[in-house]
């Protein structure tokens, strides 16, 4: 019998770990530079916590056996856990809260996806207890900063506004609104066209379906509609956000405004966005996020609502988008020194010398030879492992250095 990881799970070997760490370390460094502190929440949560508010369906959560108190689930994303921790454990802290994470999340793959991935690695931020366009702009600029710094080729941001789309949908009678929303979210133009709707409503639905493009053209089109005061305010906000982004970024951000960018169910209330890259005929969903001004209230003991905005980046997709570039480390780091005891009696001296080397420079990598090999085999090993120097240690602690050429 062979033991394998379950379908959808996998092992990461050292080179892949080094490459993904390179990505994630850079991201965390950028998050730190923007004043975010890392938070670690539990991998396991009550299923009720994860699915509170109905945005996450229980079927997408990998559930663990019932115990007496209820069902547990492996977190499918981090925002719910962080929201829970922030309003319960960090209450009374100074606001706003800037939190970041690097973590694995788990998703039950849909039924027809044989061997679909179960475990995903993410890095992300949540800016809690802060509403308004300045916070939105901070998050979008931070996202752009991350993608630029990593050197992702040909990336774009797809930006929507769940609040504005909701207002635009409010002209539809409640009984058909849900279906229109479904068609927009799932890009089903055919159902809208073949639908036996009043001509005005149908024209409106098809117009909403096409509301995407450069922010300027889309917002111009939206302002020609008769908007209710909420929608009007949202449009003005969105205009100010775009303006702020354009003026605060060295290069204009590649943003496509898409007012049908929404999920059938989600917890977003304001801006929503996805970061995408196209490379070598592949499309990568690098990250996603948005504003959720009602989520924190779900977890607050007194249901006190507070705003929040954030994003998560998908490490696997970032890695795939970068793998054909030369940005990632191409090899695991090699040891700088191989320390070899000349005789069994010199072993103590070898340990001491290795320690002295390590203390000389915290970055240095020193490994010990474990004996039972002749000098030529040791040299061959050093060459194979790209080790630059061998220190041959004598009983009295003196040593000679041999540089390995390979």
């Amino acid at each position, binding site marked *: 019998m062979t033991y394998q990881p379950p379908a959808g799970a996998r092992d990461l070997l050292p080179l892949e770990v080094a490459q993904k760490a390179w990505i994630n370390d850079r991201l965390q460094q950028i998050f730190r530079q923007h004043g975010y502190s890392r938070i670690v929440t539990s991998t396991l949560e009550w299923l009720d916590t994860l699915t509170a508010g109905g945005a996450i369906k229980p079927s997408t959560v990998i559930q663990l056996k019932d115990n007496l108190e209820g069902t547990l689930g492996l977190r499918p994303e981090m925002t719910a856990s962080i929201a829970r921790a922030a309003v319960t454990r960090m209450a009374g802290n100074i606001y706003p809260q800037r939190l970041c994470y690097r973590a694995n999340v788990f998703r039950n793959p849909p039924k*027809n996806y044989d061997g679909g991935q179960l475990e995903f690695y993410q890095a992300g931020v949540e800016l809690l207890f802060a509403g308004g366009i300045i916070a939105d702009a901070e998050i979008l600029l931070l996202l752009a900063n991350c993608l630029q710094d990593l050197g992702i080729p040909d990336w*774009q941001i*797809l930006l929507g506004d769940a609040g504005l789309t909701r207002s635009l949908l409010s002209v539809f009678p409640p009984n058909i609104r849900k279906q229109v929303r479904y068609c927009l979210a*799932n*890009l*089903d*133009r*055919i*159902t809208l*066209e*073949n639908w036996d709707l009043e001509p005005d409503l149908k024209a409106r639905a098809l117009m909403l379906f096409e509301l*995407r*493009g450069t922010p300027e053209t889309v917002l111009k089109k939206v302002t020609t509609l008769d908007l209710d005061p909420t929608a009007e305010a949202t449009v003005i906000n969105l205009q100010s956000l775009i303006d702020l982004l354009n003026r605060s970024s060295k290069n204009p951000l590649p943003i*496509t405004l*898409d007012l*049908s*960018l929404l999920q059938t169910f989600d917890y977003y209330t304001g801006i929503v966005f*996805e970061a*995408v890259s*196209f490379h070598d*005929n*592949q*499309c990568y*969903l690098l990250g996603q996020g948005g504003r959720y001004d009602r989520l924190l209230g779900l977890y607050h003991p007194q249901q006190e609502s507070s705003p929040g905005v954030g994003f998560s980046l998908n490490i696997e997709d970032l890695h795939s988008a970068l793998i054909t570039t030369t940005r990632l480390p191409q090899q695991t780091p090699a040891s700088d020194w191989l320390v070899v005891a000349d005789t069994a009696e010199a072993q103590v001296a070898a340990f001491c010398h290795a320690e002295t080397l390590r203390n000389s420079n915290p970055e240095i990598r020193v490994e010990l030879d474990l004996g039972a090999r002749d000098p030529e085999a040791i040299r061959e090993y050093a060459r194979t492992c790209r080790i630059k120097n061998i220190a041959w240690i004598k009983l009295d602690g003196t040593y000679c250095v041999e540089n390995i050429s390979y």
Partner: protein
Amino acid sequence: MITIALPKGALLKDTIELFKQVGLDFSLFLDKSNRQLQITDPTNTAKALLVRAQDVPVYVEYGQAQLGVVGYDVLREKQPNVANVTDLKFGYCRLSVAVPKSSSYRRSQELPPHGRVASKFVNCAKEHFRSIDLPVEIVPLSGSVELGPITGMSEAIVDLVSTGRTLKENGLLEIEVLYESTARLIAHPLSYRLKRDNIDDLVAKLHGLVRE
């Protein structure tokens, strides 16, 4: 360059005709001696992949093709995550329940509980019988479904009907239509949203042609 997935089989000729009208000539795929599965049109503006109809939504969902043409029947059966952009109106057919003419069944409800139904459209068949609360055993086949009742393996079939000739010649009777199907233009969702490779222009042109 935009890549379009074209379906082998019944829809191919009309599909190639449609793209010809917007200036993209993939008629090499109709040439019997051609063995190439990926070609570029003579004006060098678009690539086409020749794939089995069931695989069109797969290439589009994964983004290897930004556009594709496929029957609604395949979409309904596979439920792929793709944008449904335009009803191309050609390639009409319907998914129906059929039984031997000699049987007494004239409605799905009259079929015996736990009877057998042969079909290529396992999910659609399941959905239909679940909706009328009739427990049946679906026997998955990949072709010549009409043989199910002829050989006595199943009481009924759920299969595509276009003219009804095949049913008639095999002594079968269409008793219920599940849905009607036509060819659809589908798109990779993110490419469509981000208007990659001017996908919106091409879609608008095709859309305009169909509406004329």
